[in-house]
């Protein structure tokens, strides 16, 4: 196994720049998923049955379908006008990969899936607050909106920070899936580098870049970033536990699942 390609030409930089694309996609999708997930969580706690059901349906459908199925479907089925519209009108400061006609499908898929996951995280966070908190707020004469805005959400949201950061780790890994719809992020760049993407450009140098070692390097890039994030999440968890009124003695079994 040869790693000579790593320090020849601009190969490593080629990969690192593509890796940045993954991170950008993850951040964009995360912000949008948070914006969709929070209302969904509030909807799923609503007292109005149809609202609750609609939120539950959204969550159950998008959380239980393979992400790659949604991304492929959206890439095939998104209206042509939307795809070419984005390609032609995307702001010029975006990198090429983010101006691709398929990027909307990729990001929409990631947002649908993650909004469902985050809605559940938010819901659990709100429900894990001691019930007395909201009751006390109600007893003080606050309206439902005030209870949520002033008492429940500030504490609940803080509780959700660690879980949201771990979801960012999952999302980070999931961004590699858009390589399957031909967006040039790090995995696709790796395949181009090793000449396995059906692309005549094979790295631009005389040095062979075997796909095995290219993929190992890409894997290590993800480990480095995600390890930092999971350390951060653990620290936030330790710090947050002391600050909020949570129900005591929740069982300590990890609820993490690969996604």
């Amino acid at each position, binding site marked *: 196994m040869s790693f000579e390609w790593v320090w020849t030409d601009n190969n490593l930089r080629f990969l690192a720049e593509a890796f940045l694309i993954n991170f950008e996609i993850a951040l964009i999708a995360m912000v949008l998923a948070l914006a969709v997930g929070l209302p969904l969580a509030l909807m799923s706690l609503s007292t109005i049955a149809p609202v609750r059901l609609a939120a539950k349906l959204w969550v159950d459908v998008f959380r239980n379908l393979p992400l*790659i199925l949604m991304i492929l479907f959206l890439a095939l089925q998104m209206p042509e006008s939307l795809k070419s519209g984005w390609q032609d009108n995307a702001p010029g400061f975006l990198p090429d990969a983010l101006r691709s006609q398929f990027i909307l499908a990729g990001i929409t898929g990631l947002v649908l899936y993650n909004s469902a996951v985050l809605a559940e995280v938010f819901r659990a966070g709100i429900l894990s607050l001691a019930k007395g908190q909201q009751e006390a707020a109600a007893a003080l004469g606050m309206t439902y909106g005030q209870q949520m805005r002033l008492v429940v959400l500030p504490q609940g949201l803080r509780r959700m920070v660690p879980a949201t950061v771990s979801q960012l780790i999952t999302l980070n890994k999931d961004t590699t899936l858009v390589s399957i719809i031909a967006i040039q992020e790090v995995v696709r760049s790796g395949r181009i580098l090793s000449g396995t993407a059906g692309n005549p450009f094979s790295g631009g140098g005389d040095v062979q870049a075997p796909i095995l070692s290219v993929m190992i390097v890409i894997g290590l890039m993800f480990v480095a970033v995600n390890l930092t994030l999971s350390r951060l999440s653990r620290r936030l968890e330790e710090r947050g536990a002391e600050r909020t009124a949570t129900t005591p003695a929740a069982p300590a079994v990890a609820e993490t699942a690969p996604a």
Partner: protein
Amino acid sequence: MFELFSDNSDQFLSGLWVTTRLVAASFLVAVVLGTLIAALRVAPNKWVNRAGGVYVEIFRDTPLLVLLFIAYPGLRRSGVEIGAWTAGIAALGVYTSAYVAEVLRSGVFAVARGQAEAGLSLGFTQPQVMRRIVLPQAARTVIGPLGSITIAMIKNSAIVGASIVALPDLLKEARIVNSNTFQTEESFLWAAVGYLLLTITVTIIFRSLESRYAVRR
């Protein structure tokens, strides 16, 4: 809509069967490997713990797609004659084993310390305490989380099929039906139905296990 299914039922059903076998085999790999790693993680030696921790971090933080490219084209191009099935099962199994190890480890730690101490004070040896007191209780607390891992695995199996050409799983078959019939919505809808069937079945199995064995603490 139903016509599309009845016309192509052979393909959809064989895809569903491939996905089922892929998930079942990977589940076995994940549980066996995960248990071994969890054993390292709860061992009384610091360095053994660390080794288990490194395994978990590496495989939990690497995208499954990257593992698949390492396992199949990567190894094959380096001259290892690995089959599509072996590579797919190994990648999905190893990826999931890191999550299984974490769940088992936290399950062991969720058993109250007094339980192990009581066992020791009754004259049980350390391995006996593990086998007879801690593990039976830990097994009960991890049923739920193992269920979510299995469901995630069903969804992740679609990534295996999407990246390894020689593995015709449910999503791959649906894509073939789509390219033959140009009925994209229906083809993907039936694939989605297949995946939901699998996840619902697994949910029911784990829920009934949980209601039978789980302990409230």
